[in-house]
């Protein structure tokens, strides 16, 4: 299985590099380069740089959110595909129990239950992945404006730790 996190890194790199190119353009202030329809038009350089800084900060947060969402989906899909309860046995009771177990698994808490079943993954790495999940929750629950993050994070570091987990867990 290829790393399901890779497509996110691809679009993130494109977006980040686009911002770098835009930054160069607003810094150079070449006449006619930034058309009137763009938000950067007619603003001073500092204001444009500040707006780009803010946008990049938000992008970095949202990328960690996206990485963690795909990571979580990948783990849940991996668990539900395990042949713990045999599929399609033909026995209505067994099939119903299987359906219920799978439905329950969707509600397992990602940090306290899903991550913890992967006991082959080093405990320190499981702990770091929980920190990434805490960070994701901080972003997803809209707390960025009222609270500092639970831990400092970069998208590259989140990607590296989540990928290491998927690898050690033999999911990819």
């Amino acid at each position: 299985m290829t790393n399901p996190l890779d497509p996110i890194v691809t679009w993130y790199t494109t977006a980040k590099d686009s911002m770098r190119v835009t930054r160069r353009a607003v810094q150079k202030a070449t006449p006619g380069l930034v058309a009137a329809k763009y938000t950067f038009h007619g603003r001073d350089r500092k204001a444009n740089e500040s707006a780009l800084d803010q946008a990049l900060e938000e992008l970095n947060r949202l990328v960690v959110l996206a990485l963690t969402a795909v990571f979580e989906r990948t783990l849940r899909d991996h668990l539900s595909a395990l042949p713990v309860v045999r599929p399609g046995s033909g026995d209505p009771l067994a099939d119903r129990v299987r359906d219920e177990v799978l439905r329950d698994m969707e509600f397992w808490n990602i940090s306290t239950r899903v991550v913890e079943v992967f006991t082959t993954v080093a405990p320190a790495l499981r702990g770091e992945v929980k920190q990434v999940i805490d960070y994701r929750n901080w972003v997803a629950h809209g707390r960025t404006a009222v609270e500092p993050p639970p831990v400092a994070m970069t998208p590259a570091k989140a990607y590296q730790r989540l990928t290491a987990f998927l690898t050690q867990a033999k999911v990819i």
Partner: protein
Amino acid sequence: MPITQDRTLQADADLSPTVANRNWLVESIIDLSTVNAEWSRATDVRGRPGAFLHLRDRSGAEAGVGFLPEEVRDDEAFETRLRGLKDALLKVAAWRLAVERLLTTIQPWSEALPGNPLVRREPVRVVEARSGGYETSKLVITRGGREMRVMPVAAWALGADGRVDMIGPDDTAVLEYARATDSWRHVPNDLPYRELPLTEVLFRELAETCLGEHD
């Protein structure tokens, strides 16, 4: 260990004695003779009233945590939060020293950059979820109308014992601290993932990238 209440809390006839009755527990768990503790009245992000305990040691390290009244009364919850607060204070104290040592190391490197940059150290207040706010220092490097800040970001960083960012008009570079080896490394925010030991040569490269061209 001196433990005081500020006027806002003293004026609260319900909360003030509740908190005062728990000071023996604060003293026994924090157990640091070099620390001053102050209680104040506070509200949490949902606007619920409670008390805030702020610790400061002689080095200037600070840490604080808020409690709802029910959390002050709950022995187990109160003790757990106090132990977390003590850990946070010790971590902030160690982190502030690491930042000071880093800035002392890179200040001459910064002054030696081409273009005769002006380099100054300034106080900065960092606010973190685990500790609350604390004072530390940043380095400001100005060259040709461009400014780069070497800014402490957090003592709590994923897979590291702290993070400082070099923030310039052209780019930002992340430096991470490893307490076990008392060393700094640069961790680029791109792939493939890598950690590069911080040297003077690397610092100069990063500074040039972040500062960008002269005006």
